[in-house]
């Protein structure tokens, strides 16, 4: 019994659980044990994959005689899938534990419970698939299961629209992947991954396949400009599912891209790296700018997912550029940075979405402008959420910074690239990544500041209470990992070494032997980073400062109303709101990205009407691409509408014309 079979047994257990949930889902109090069962299965799968990853297990195969009769279904587990299996099943464990408590508030659990394990099973299957049919089938299964979950709260028309847009985009993505595998299999039709690997691809075909994969996988991951469904669909689902979709399902898409680009095709052409880098960088900045404008907390987090996916793809682009030029160490560095970020993002995005769900339950609103002052009411959640915010803003000493730092080190290697175009592109992408990181910090200061700090902005925020123990436990687990990965990045870098070996042929130098657990990607004289020591230093200095000020300074303090530059204490409405917080950025970068404009209507003195300020923000991507497509489709359907009202004779002549045309075509062909 090998690892692939063990993982498949977990998938089977998920599917059995889905069937059981279908039967038991309507019963009261069924959700907690069912979620616990989910957590147990996911934990098993997680343990198996981590053991295999750390233990450096090679590829193992497993075939099942199901599916298309003469082909069967092929499965394979190797380092790449172990890594992603670990990420996904860890996210699943956390989400299930969170849902044990969170699911109690669910009004219609039978709309979620059966699809949830099915969704988990589908994601696991995609990672295990070893032939094109199984892969696409699992991929579609994953899309449909998540579609059902997005539609769980179907009474809201917004959610129905989200589900519709999601389904459309998912079909589009699958179509692109269908072409990918069509091209990969070639005329001989070798749909097994092993056959595809053994084929030689000329540069043009390989490039086309990778670009199509970027489109197909990117539409699932949320790359601009095919990201539009993501901020609609992720928030529509219940929060633990949102966390899975944002933190985990996007990673399945990253896996698909890595599998196709690095493993199946192999990177040999540098020119294909440029669009990947560029799209990644642009996606990162666009995503976080959107997040900065957003006031719905779950949509904000979904947009931030787009940013992180952009960062990951930009790093993969760098890895491709280095790999195509035979620069093994920089390629491994960029690739490890991408994988590290994959793991990090799944952790802190899970944390943030769980917290968002708890906040939604506690206040009843998703609009952060209605929250405020939660730090006084959700006392236990507040520090955990802060850890998530610091981590995702790529600030030391937490985990987000560790991967960001590796990414910058990879960018610094790019002057060695021989192609001038890539050399010019590389610092640009570096600047875009830095911009995205700084904007992310702004975005999460805004989120935390508006939702948790200040005074309550709405009546609902006054009554907020901490979530239950299960939810808090899941959130605390994620927060602890943010800190641990941040302080011991070398462990993660070493753990993904086999993945880099598999995808690129060379790993990064092992980090475990370094002095004081620091990470040294290339050479000690070039760069090193030791978060543990840094953290110890900061903690020491902060405690010392506090201690000294306790000894020497007056420690008397007095509570009083806020001073506010001498203004009379005013109501909570005068606090800085989220919209005003993002105004400087909206007026600068937003003008370019969203064509943002403000118009102020200031009544003249003596006039009694209130002053108004209007802000216009346009989603240029939607207007330029999707709006146009919708217009064209509408126009065509308007035209075709006429076909419904023809006379019988006209219909007959249409049929006749078609027949003649087909015959003519046949004549011309043969």
């Amino acid at each position, binding site marked *: 019994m090998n690892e692939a079979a063990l993982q498949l047994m977990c998938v089977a257990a998920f599917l059995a659980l889905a069937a059981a949930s279908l039967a038991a889902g309507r019963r009261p109090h069924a959700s907690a044990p069912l979620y616990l069962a989910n957590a147990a299965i996911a934990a098993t799968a997680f343990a198996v994959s981590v053991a295999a990853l750390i233990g450096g297990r090679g590829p193992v195969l497993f075939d099942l005689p199901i599916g298309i009769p003469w082909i069967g279904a092929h499965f394979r587990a190797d380092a790449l899938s172990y890594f992603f299996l670990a990420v996904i099943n860890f996210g699943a464990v956390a989400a299930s534990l969170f849902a044990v408590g969170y699911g109690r508030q669910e009004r219609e659990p039978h709309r979620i419970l059966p699809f949830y394990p099915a969704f988990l099973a589908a994601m696991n299957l995609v990672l295990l698939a070893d032939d094109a049919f199984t892969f696409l089938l699992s991929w579609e299964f994953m899309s449909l299961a998540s579609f059902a979950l997005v539609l769980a709260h179907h009474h809201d028309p917004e959610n129905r629209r989200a589900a519709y847009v999601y389904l459309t985009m998912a079909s589009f993505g699958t179509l692109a992947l269908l072409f990918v595998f069509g091209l990969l299999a070639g005329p001989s039709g070798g749909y097994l991954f092993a056959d595809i690997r053994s084929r030689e691809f000329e540069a043009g075909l390989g490039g086309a396949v990778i670009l199509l994969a970027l489109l197909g996988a990117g539409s699932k991951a949320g790359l601009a400009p095919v990201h539009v469904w993501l901020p609609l669909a992720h928030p529509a689902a219940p929060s633990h599912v949102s966390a899975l979709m944002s933190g985990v399902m996007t990673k399945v898409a990253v896996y698909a891209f890595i599998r196709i680009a690095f493993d199946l095709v192999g990177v040999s052409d540098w020119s294909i790296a440029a669009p990947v880098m560029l799209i990644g960088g642009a996606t990162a900045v666009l995503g976080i700018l959107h997040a900065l404008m957003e006031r719905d907390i779950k949509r904000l987090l979904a947009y931030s997912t787009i940013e992180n996916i952009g960062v990951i793809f930009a790093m993969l682009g760098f890895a491709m550029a280095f790999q195509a030029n035979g620069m093994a160490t920089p390629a491994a560095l960029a690739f490890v940075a991408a994988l590290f970020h994959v793991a990090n993002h799944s952790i802190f995005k899970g944390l943030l979405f769980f917290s968002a769900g708890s906040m939604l339950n506690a206040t009843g609103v998703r609009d952060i402008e209605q929250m405020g002052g939660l730090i*006084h009411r959700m006392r236990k959640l507040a520090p955990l959420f802060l850890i998530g915010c610091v981590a995702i803003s790529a600030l030391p000493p937490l985990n987000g910074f560790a991967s960001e730092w590796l990414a910058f080190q990879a960018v610094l290697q790019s002057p060695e690239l021989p192609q001038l175009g890539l*050399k010019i592109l590389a610092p640009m992408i570096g600047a875009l990544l830095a*911009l995205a990181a700084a904007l992310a910090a702004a975005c999460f200061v805004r989120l935390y500041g508006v939702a948790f700090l200040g005074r309550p902005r709405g009546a609902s925020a006054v009554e907020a209470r901490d979530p239950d123990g299960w939810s808090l436990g899941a959130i605390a687990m994620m927060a602890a990992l943010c800190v641990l990965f941040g302080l011991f990045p070398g462990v993660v870098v070493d753990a993904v070494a086999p993945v880099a070996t598999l995808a690129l042929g060379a790993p990064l130098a092992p980090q475990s032997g370094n002095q004081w657990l620091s990470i040294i990607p290339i050479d000690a004289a*070039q760069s*090193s*980073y030791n978060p543990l020591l840094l953290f110890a230093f900061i903690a020491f200095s902060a405690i010392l400062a506090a201690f000294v000020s306790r000894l020497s300074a007056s420690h008397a303090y007095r509570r009083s109303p*806020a001073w*506010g*530059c001498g203004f009379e204490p005013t109501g909570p409405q005068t*606090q800085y709101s989220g919209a005003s917080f993002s105004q400087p950025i909206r007026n600068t970068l937003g003008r370019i990205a969203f064509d943002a404009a403000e118009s102020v209507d200031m009544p003249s003195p003596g006039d009694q009407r209130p002053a108004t300020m209007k802000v216009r923000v346009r989603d240029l991507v939607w207007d330029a691409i999707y709006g146009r497509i919708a217009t064209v489709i509408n126009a065509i359907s308007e035209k075709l509408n006429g076909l419904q009202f023809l006379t019988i004779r006209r219909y007959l002549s249409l049929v006749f014309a078609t027949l003649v045309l087909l015959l003519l075509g046949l004549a011309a062909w043969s």
Partner: protein
Amino acid sequence: MVLTTQLMFQAFQMLLVLALAPLLTGVVRKVKARLTRRRGASIFQPYRDLFRLMRKEAVIADNASWIFRSAPYLIFAATWVAAALTPTFRTGLMFSWSADLIVIVALLGSARFILALAGMDVGTAFGGIGSSREMMIAAFAEPAMLLAVFTVALVAGSTELSSIAAFMTSDAVGLRVSLALALFALIMVAIAENARIPVDNPATHLELTMVHEAMVLEYSGRHLAMIEFASFLKLLLYASMIGAVFAPWGLAEDGAGVARNALGVMVYLGKLLGAAILLALFETATAKMRVFRVPDFLGAALMLGFLGALLLFAGGRF
């Protein structure tokens, strides 16, 4: 034995930056006053201010949470650690390898993150205005800073400040266009990050123009002292960083004797004095700009940094 000496040097540097930071600000203020034909306060006034603040009772707004109360210490600690890891009078400090240039910049980013949160904690309009503007400035400053760092790192082949300083003293450097551009970009970023004219005026409480002051408006007593101290340290940090990278002469090397290190300290003091005078001259000669002109200013820094990086990435000896 070697270990104790190294540890002593590291501890000495930590204390040195702590001791010098208020003095630097005092000198800048004094020179500015003299340039505008005022007598100005003594250069030791910042120390007195700090002691005065420490002795005072702290007033905390009703609504302030634990973030408000712990932020000053965290900001101070992060800035202090960053300043202690920047070469001042000697390279190759014991722990300098634990943070390279990128980490030092990011540490300051962490401090800024906490400060911006503290600004929003009380729930007044002023705190928010400061935080919002600070984050906007950071959003433009950080890419510019990073590109300048890239330029320097590429020339020196390292992001470690000690290695950069060692490289910059060697003959291999020469005069380079890209370094000049990076220097310009770095100075512009430093001006913005330290809330100096023309980006922000550290001596004003005029609500329409203030950024940094608006965030710390609610602070008093020992908390304010910590935050003030952190901003003194930040100015010192940028002065030593630019000094270490672009004027690395006189830095004592690792393993040098006591006399050499003493010389290093003297040269460092000279550099700080020079930086203070230049900053004061610049601040006196320029006018504060509108807040929405700041993105243009930092955009120019970004472009300079990018131009510098571009020249290097494109290859050749720039």
